[in-house]
């Protein structure tokens, strides 16, 4: 989840009459978790469904509502203008088909504003922009650009001075040699033509979704902004634009529209939408009994507009709240506006009788039996490693099930056996007193349409007198007392066990496991200094009854 840094004093200026404590007390009730605080600075984590909380302007709008300072929806005032237009050439349609944008004028931009706008841009790129794949933003100094603009394609040899560079670079060079080029160049595929925005003088404005031209860089001297959003889907691009437009208006800019045309593109509307919600759905879902006016007041505190219409409430939702899919989302908005702290938990009497799953019950009985036999329960991860599962224990690693790109070397392969983990556990305890007796019940995984999961029991005993007879007695008693079943052991050879001291465990004519003295090579591998005996049996199917 994204984290942003806010300043209390800046928030206080944006919100109006409010104390620092009121702000910090209210943030969690907007769904914003306070990560850390340091004097005037507070770091908060916001949910990716609320990109408007990526700046202090957006957070201030939310807090104004919750604190009752300013309620109701934020209306975008976009001045109709004919001075700005972008025409789109059909060549972009196969690469990055849509562009949209807005003009923002007469704002005051200080360092802090630039910082807020930059984090907003980054967060939007990462979240709803899906790492710029779906949509991406360019913010430019309007006064460096001469309209009308053209969104078209160009060759990879086209040169301009990109942001943060002092010299001209070709598009090929930008893609291959700059950091952002390397990170996002793949979004443009193998095409020889690249998307580009030129102004009327053929000056390069932007190479979306990679980088802006240096000439339009926004500084503290910038007064007027041109914002463009490009993307693979028109609605997604306009959603993103609606967040930026709302934030810029809140930051004191006046908005003017841009006319966009050509190749299925059109001017953005950034329109509010209306949605009906039935008060009974709200009250039923929340377990409250709110009247219509209380519901409307709560929605307004969540910065939406609402009116009563017949039995329903009709809600007006600004464009930037595209996280609202349907009436259930409005139910949550009512809950937030009403205040989660005002909900009194209730306990509805249960009409149902609970039961533990029969498998869990049987495993618990088995645990008790093993403990009665003097064994300590161990727990290992089911996601283990080649070293533990195969290399150290001489086991065949042909049919492994591995995960992709694990961040941890020790967790790369799903175990097909529990015993290797227990042997590894002994190696971590060679300084502890013996005898060491452990057992574990847990899932094992095998390739089968596509994967079968079964529960195994593995048992291990390590001490100077450990021998086959001892462990067979344990096996025999555990199964007899645990499940009332009798097993046989039949000589076999297995690389994990000593030759001549190893047997298959047979139940009803089927091999259900293996028992024996652990191969001395394995014990040596782990530098264990006492003999080790053990067994592993499959409990699923043959032993555990699912009832």
């Amino acid at each position: 989840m994204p984290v942003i840094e806010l300043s209390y004093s800046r928030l206080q200026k944006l919100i109006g009459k409010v104390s620092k404590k009121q702000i910090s007390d209210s943030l969690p009730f907007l769904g914003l978790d306070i990560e850390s605080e340091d004097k005037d600075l507070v770091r908060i984590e916001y949910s990716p469904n609320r990109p408007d909380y990526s700046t202090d302007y957006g957070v201030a709008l939310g807090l104004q509502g919750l604190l009752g300072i300013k309620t109701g929806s934020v209306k975008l005032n976009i001045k109709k203008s004919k001075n700005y237009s972008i025409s789109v050439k059909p060549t972009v349609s196969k690469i990055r088909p849509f562009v949209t944008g807005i003009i923002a004028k007469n704002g005051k931009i200080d360092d802090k504003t630039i910082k807020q706008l930059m984090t907003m841009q980054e967060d939007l790129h990462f979240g709803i922009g899906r790492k710029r794949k779906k949509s991406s933003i360019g913010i430019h100094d309007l006064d460096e650009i001469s309209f009308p603009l053209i969104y078209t394609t160009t060759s990879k040899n086209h040169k301009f001075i990109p942001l943060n560079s002092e010299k001209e670079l070709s598009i090929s060079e930008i893609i291959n040699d700059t950091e952002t080029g390397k990170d996002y160049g793949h979004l443009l595929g193998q095409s020889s033509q690249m998307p580009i925005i030129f102004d009327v003088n053929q000056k390069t404005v932007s190479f979306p979704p990679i980088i802006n031209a240096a000439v339009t860089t926004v500084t503290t001297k910038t007064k007027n902004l041109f914002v463009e959003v490009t993307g693979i889907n028109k609605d997604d691009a306009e959603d993103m634009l609606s967040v930026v437009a709302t934030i810029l208006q809140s930051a004191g800019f006046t908005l003017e529209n841009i006319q966009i045309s050509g190749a299925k593109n059109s001017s953005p509307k950034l329109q509010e939408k209306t949605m009906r919600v039935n008060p009974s759905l709200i009250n039923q879902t929340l377990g409250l009994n709110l009247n219509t006016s209380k519901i409307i007041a709560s929605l307004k505190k969540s910065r939406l507009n609402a009116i009563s219409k017949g039995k329903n409430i009709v809600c007006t939702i600004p464009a930037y709240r595209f996280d609202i899919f349907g009436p259930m989302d409005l139910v949550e908005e009512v809950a937030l506006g009403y205040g989660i702290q005002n909900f009194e938990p209730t306990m509805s009497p249960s009409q149902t009788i609970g039961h533990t799953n029969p498998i869990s019950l049987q495993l618990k009985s088995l645990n008790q039996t093993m403990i009665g036999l003097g064994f300590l329960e161990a727990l290992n991860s089911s996601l283990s490693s080649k070293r533990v599962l195969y290399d150290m224990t001489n086991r065949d690693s042909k049919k492994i099930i591995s995960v992709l790109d694990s961040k941890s070397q020790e967790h790369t392969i799903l175990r097909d056996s529990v015993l290797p983990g227990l042997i590894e556990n002994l190696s971590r305890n060679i300084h502890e007193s013996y005898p060491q007796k452990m057992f574990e019940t847990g899932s094992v995984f095998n390739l089968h349409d596509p994967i079968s999961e079964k529960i195994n029991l593995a048992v291990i005993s390590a001490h100077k007198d450990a021998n086959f007879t001892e462990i067979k007695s344990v096996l025999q008693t555990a199964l007899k007392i645990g499940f009332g079943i009798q097993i046989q052991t039949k000589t076999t050879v297995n690389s994990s066990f000593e030759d001549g001291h190893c047997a298959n465990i047979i139940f009803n004519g089927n091999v259900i496991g293996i028992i024996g003295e652990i191969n001395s090579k394995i014990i040596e591998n782990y530098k264990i200094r006492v003999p080790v005996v053990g067994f592993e049996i499959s409990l699923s199917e043959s032993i555990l009854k699912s009832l």
Partner: protein
Amino acid sequence: MSQVFHDIEKKIINSLKENSIQSPETLEKSTQLSPDQVRRGIEWLKLKDLAIVDESKSSVISLGKNGLDSFEKGLPERRLLNLLKNGPRKLSDLQKELGFVFGPAMGLCRKNNWIETSSDEIILKTNSSILPGEETLQQIGSGKLSKDKLDTTDLNELLKRPDFIIEDVIKNKKISLTSSAKSLDISNTSGAIDVEAEVPEIFVARTHPLKDTIDEIREIFVTLGFSEILGNMTQSSFWNFDALFTPQDHPARELQDTFFLDGISAKKIATPEQIRKVSESHKKNWRYQWDINEARKMVLRTHTTCVTIKHLAENKPDEARIFSLGRVFRNEKVSYKHLVEFNQIEGIVVGKDANLRNLMGIQREFYKRIGITKIKFWPTFFPYTEPSLQTMVYNEKLGKWIELFGMGIFRPEVTKPLGITKPVLAWGGGIERIAMLKYDLDDVREFYNNNLGWLRSNTKCQ
């Protein structure tokens, strides 16, 4: 201090009362105790200030290899002198007869002027009846001797010679009673043992502490009227993500957050109707091309919700209280607060009257039963619930609020495509976090280290 004595102590005290200073060896004889019993008894009495242990060292002398040879055949120089008794002999003959002692014998005899050499013959000059060292050699040869009983000059003569003499340093212990022990009457305490003494540690066989917590939580759910369902840890992306309204390009579905199984896809993931309706919901609400191959990819479940949603989709109950408990996986770097694999509990309530305040009420009751009474609820976000809340609980030990279970009501975008018509309350969270609070651990990895020192010493009821 208890005046109760172990039998061993009594025997030693009695023996020392008769014979006031003894070595451990003589005590073994007089008390008929084993060396180990005597050693322990002396140690106990010493701790109780009833016995004094005086330690001293002494040297014991015995013969080495060459010493033994000389003890049997005579000193090399004596053997040379004996050969010359009957007149001069040829050097080469003497060399043959004396072998390796010829050299040292010649050296010593010449040095002492006992012989003289003329051309190739050796002639005896003087023959003494006792040579230096000779008597001492005889003394040592008949048995080990304490160093202070031997003639020093004679001994030093022998000590110069290689492998002649072995000197062992021995520690001697002399045990005696302290004055308070001497007046002790131990006869009337016979039969009693020292019940206050330390005893050896033994180790218990037991369930794993984390399993204890899991069992405790399972039992709470059952007593609250919930029934347990089980499900696989390996799941298709369809049930882990798609059915839960998580779009296919959502960051949670990337390799860096979720464990995808290398090259493994499920052929059958759901019924055709389920697939059709779920994909329609995605296309309509998230506006993208839903791909069935993405949904087929097998993952290690990131939550147990995939098990509960599958159960609901299959059974479509109008009313139910179920829970699912088991391992879930996240592709994270392992640290003191993160594991790649941990346990999660998840509860579900289905019912026409199920509402948010009920959901909060169940949480409050659950926390009360694990001993947490100070809780509060904050709004949060999950892709598949709306509204969504999280519980914050106050931890007295840490002195701060910490986040525990997440909860919410399943979104209509989740329930409708799967034919679930009644509201579904859902909540859940990690069990290790609760267990860490319970066992006062600050490193979550301890649960899976299987460190016997910790497992054997941990208190069971906390």
